[in-house]
């Protein structure tokens, strides 16, 4: 009899374990609420600011007892996030990368924000720049707030450029000669003189090809057409851009070749193309540096922006509270604070004066040229529904290009053959 009781207890135990594991779908509770938001920054200053905003929110909303910011490494961010969601352990709010924006926005995973933002006191949703919110909308509804709209610029190690006897990019801009041809020449000369790398397209490393859009946009090239259906890789502008890039890498040696790592911020390269938010890495730089806009391409001036959104997940237990916190987190007052690190989508905050206060490392003309002008005219990096699969197919098909004797046109034709079925999905 005792053994039966034991068995019954054990069975109950196992069952309750199972039930606990299934307990994702609960009714919205009225009890204390704790929120979790995944981010890819573990920068102490960022987290301190987030916690301050969260504390202010908790003070106003006693029901919310905890708001936790959960950093996930950038490299595996989207993968980790979706795995958490798949495991029934998704966060209430999440930062979203632009390359996963179409997937998240179109899937119905996020809470539509228009009503919440519209109702929030003093929110002024009309202040949000339409070019910044475009990527985060579906069927006219906003699904995520583009908390960071960060243009790409060129950071220059002026010491290295001067040592090679070259004109600095700032001088070239003044002479109206800051073109891709010149940029590559300066990079090649600086690299030859210093024995270090010339121009590094940061985070490309012959894998993250979407970062090359900061180059090819100067030729008017695009990875795919705006409707996402047509492949752009085999079009003439892309062939021209990639031919130029291939020559710059393998003939001019202006860019480090495949398998060579060089970190601009550690003084290993003369120039790098990256987002301005990386300026903080230069706080203790031991070399002279400058930040300039991207060089002009055959199609003239252009700029490219990288974006990050903040969304509330529908599956969360307290999705309504999460959306409400999102509205608080991004209201005009908090947006101004966040602008210290993340260029805001609010047009009222996009002035050189406001940004200068919070970006002490950058000069007003750098902010005006690169940030403000960049955001108003910027093209967003390529993104598409099912981006991860397309990105992988492009990476694999582009690999043959990164050899000295590659036939650019044939390789690019191969990229289109590889991704056409995926684009058509």
């Amino acid at each position, binding site marked *: 009899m005792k053994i039966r009781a034991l068995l019954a207890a054990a069975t109950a135990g196992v069952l309750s374990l199972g039930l606990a594991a299934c307990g994702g779908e609960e009714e919205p509770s009225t009890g204390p609420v704790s929120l979790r938001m995944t981010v890819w920054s573990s920068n102490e200053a960022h987290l301190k600011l987030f916690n301050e905003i969260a504390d202010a929110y908790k003070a106003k909303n006693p029901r919310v007892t905890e708001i936790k910011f959960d950093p996930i490494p950038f490299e595996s961010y989207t993968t980790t996030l979706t795995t958490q969601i798949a495991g029934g352990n998704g966060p209430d709010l999440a930062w979203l990368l632009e390359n996963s924006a179409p997937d998240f926005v179109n899937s119905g995973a996020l809470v539509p924000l228009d009503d919440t933002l519209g109702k929030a006191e003093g929110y002024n949703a009309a202040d949000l720049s339409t070019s910044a919110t475009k990527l985060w909308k579906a069927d006219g509804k906003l699904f995520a707030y583009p908390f960071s709209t960060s243009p790409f610029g060129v950071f220059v190690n002026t010491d290295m450029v001067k040592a090679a006897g070259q004109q600095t990019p700032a001088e070239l801009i003044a002479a109206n000669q800051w073109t891709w041809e010149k940029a590559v020449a300066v990079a090649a000369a600086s690299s030859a003189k210093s024995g270090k790398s010339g121009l590094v397209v940061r985070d490309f490393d012959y894998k993250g090809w979407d970062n090359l859009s900061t180059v090819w946009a100067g030729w008017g090239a695009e990875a795919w057409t705006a409707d996402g259906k047509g492949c752009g890789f085999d079009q003439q502008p892309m062939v021209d851009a990639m031919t130029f890039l291939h020559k710059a890498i393998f003939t001019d040696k202006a860019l480090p*070749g*495949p*398998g060579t*790592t060089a970190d601009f911020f550690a003084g290993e390269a003369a120039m790098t193309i990256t987002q301005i938010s990386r300026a903080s890495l230069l706080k203790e730089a031991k070399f002279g540096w400058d930040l300039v806009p991207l060089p002009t391409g055959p199609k003239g001036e252009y700029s490219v922006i990288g974006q990050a959104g903040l969304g509330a997940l529908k*599956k969360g237990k307290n999705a309504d509270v999460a959306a409400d916190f999102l509205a608080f987190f991004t209201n005009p007052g908090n947006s101004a604070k966040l602008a210290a690190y993340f260029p805001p989508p609010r047009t009222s905050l996009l002035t050189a004066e406001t940004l200068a206060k919070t970006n002490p490392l950058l000069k007003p003309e750098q902010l005006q040229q690169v940030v403000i002008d960049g955001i108003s005219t910027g093209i967003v990096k390529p993104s598409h529904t099912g981006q*991860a*699969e397309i990105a992988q197919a492009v990476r*694999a098909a582009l*690999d043959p290009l*990164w050899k000295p004797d590659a036939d650019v046109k044939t390789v690019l034709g191969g990229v289109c053959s590889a991704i056409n079925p995926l684009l058509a999905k």
Partner: protein
Amino acid sequence: MSTRFWTGSRRDTLAGYLFIAPQLLGSLLFVFVPLGLVFWYSLHEWNVLADTFTFVGGENYQALADDPKLADALVATGFFSAGLVVLNLSLALLLAVLLNQRLRGTVFFRTVFFSPVVVSLVAWTIVWNFLLQDNGGINGLLETVGVDGPNWLRGEGTAMIAVIVVQVVKNVGLNMVLFLAALQGVPANLYEAATVDGASRRRQFLSITVPMISPTILLTSIITVVGSLQVFAQIAVLTQGGPGTSTTVLVYYLYQQAFQFHHFGYGATLSVLLFVIVLLLTLVQWRMRRKWVFHES
């Protein structure tokens, strides 16, 4: 009543079950339940973001049969496994035979070859990732002897070789130690008798050593084959499946499908395939032991 129920043997039985209960519960919760779930998921189309989980029957298995990329993944897996098993086992056996001599310094060399086994796999691979760069340590070393080394991780042919070698150097010590233990279990009088009969060293190795350590060869080959089919971290750190798809082995392809492309149902189907392959290979090896394991205690 209870005193009569709890006889000595019943107490022992209960104690026995209680002793194995943690292990059994662990296996049940973390091996058999997930195994069943994976099969269940493979019958579904699971879109994590849209939160849909639809029964599709055998559709994922049909997709598996029609998947043009699967063949590439299987070829890459086969190439990796074959390369790894051959290189690992022959090198491990060679090292074990060499270090089984009564010579000075054998303990030192045993330690040297075994130490990579205890290093964290990811740390090990990251260091090798630096060494194998075009401007990395390996090519720097080659340059000193006048050789212009290839761009290891970027060449279609060299990338896979590089991954195999990194893995062999990491794990060869484990097999070496197993072989050493086996070699030391071979009775010395067999060799003495063979020497008296005039058998050469080569003959002794083939006719005495190999048969006597054949159970260990079987064991190490099963461990190595199964391990090779599960290679993931090395690929993820060193090549991410490239260049092209030349190092996209089955597990990495599975990871891409499930966790990067969000095709969880199809990913589960691929893991069922992996399970079947591992099971079949293990069964084949196990059955082959009758043929080539001469000595089994």
